[in-house]
């Protein structure tokens, strides 16, 4: 039977991951597809999973009663949705909505946490990848916060 391993190996998120560690993750992964407009996760709900995007576009949104849905970031091919599945209380902080038809690999949060706990080499490889993403998004958020186009900074 064909496994997801070659697809994972090709995804930029797993670049450089030793194949023997990648193998351990395959059991937590499944192929999924979202139509444009589908919600992938909802703010406040249990973050029981994360997704690596193979193709498509996903908007991270916050809903405000006065402004409606505000998109704070969009994610595309090669991106990863988030890390709420990794940290208690395992709740999503944003709505994630497919903007276009989106193909992704879903990772089950519980399954992943058990694997990372069991094998710390795998845990470290995964954390390195998530820390890089967190650092990139933090840096982008700081620039967004400065509102550089709005006032003279």
């Amino acid at each position, binding site marked *: 039977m064909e496994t997801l391993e070659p697809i994972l190996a090709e995804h930029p998120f797993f670049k450089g991951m030793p194949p023997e560690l990648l193998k351990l993750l395959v059991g937590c992964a499944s192929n999924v597809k979202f139509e444009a407009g589908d919600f992938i996760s909802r703010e406040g709900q249990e973050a029981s999973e994360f997704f690596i995007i193979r193709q498509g576009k996903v*908007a991270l*949104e916050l809903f405000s009663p006065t*402004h*409606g*849905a*505000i*998109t*704070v*970031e*969009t994610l*595309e*091919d*090669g991106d990863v949705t988030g890390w709420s599945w990794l940290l208690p209380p395992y709740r999503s902080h944003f709505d994630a*909505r497919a*903007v*276009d038809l989106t193909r992704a690999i879903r990772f089950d949060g519980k399954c992943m946490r058990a694997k990372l706990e069991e094998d710390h080499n795998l845990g470290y490889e995964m954390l390195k990848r998530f820390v890089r993403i967190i650092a*990139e998004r933090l*840096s*982008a958020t700081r*620039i*967004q916060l*400065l*509102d*550089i*186009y*709005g006032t*003279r*900074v």
Partner: protein
Amino acid sequence: MEHVFDSKAAPGRRAVLSPMVPEIFRVEKYRKETLDTYTLELKPASGTGEHRFGAGQFNMLYKFGVGEAAISISGDPTSPNPLIHTIRAVGTATKAMAKLKVGDTIGVRGPFGSCWPVEAAKGNDVLIIAGGIGLAPLRPVIYQVLAERRKYGKVFLLYGTRTPEDMLYRAELEKWRARFDMEVHVTVDRASSEWHGNVGVVTTLLKKLVLDPDNTVAMICGPEIMMRFVAMDLIKKEMTLDRIYVSMERNMKCGIGLCGHCQYGPTFICKDGPVYTYDQVIELLARREI
């Protein structure tokens, strides 16, 4: 890479007029671009004379009785008539200019300053990165490169604004994006869910771009913080500082290197800039008092 600017100051009518005396131009067309930004198309009131310029150069525009502002030329250097400026209304002079009507007059001194390395970039890939009003000083580069498209490698345009409504030159952006010989990526800092494009700061567009660092020339214009972050990401992608160009902005008065108003370290932005290679400014950008 060789430091070759297209010209230090494009030759033009300034050879005969004093650079301190404004020439009178008339507003031919007025176009509102966004809520606070507008484009003026100007022609000499005398009806004669051409206003040749290099991409990246600026004019001092004088709203009679109010004041002067340094404004980049945003038109086509290969077809410099009419003279085109895109202006964001932020203060005294630029708000007063926003009230100009077709037929009104305005004083013009220039063109001044250094140019983007459009000639020197021939044979290379060209990466144009603009933030907000920063697309205006870079639009002449796009016109010039597209006019001789075959002389360049790949051409990328990355453009970031605050919201979709703040985007300049929308119709042209769409036209450029539809071309097969140019890659255009646009992003905004925030948007409602109606917007189908990218949301995220302009550096996020760079993340996925595959560059050939030894054969690319990057030209960046936007708020200084944005230019610093973009340059940092280009350096991470192994571009050397002499292949990265930025356009600097400081308050100006004379525009010709006399008054010292625009002093930037050992240089005057009006004369030695506004376009610099990143190695010329990297240390100055890190100094707080400048």
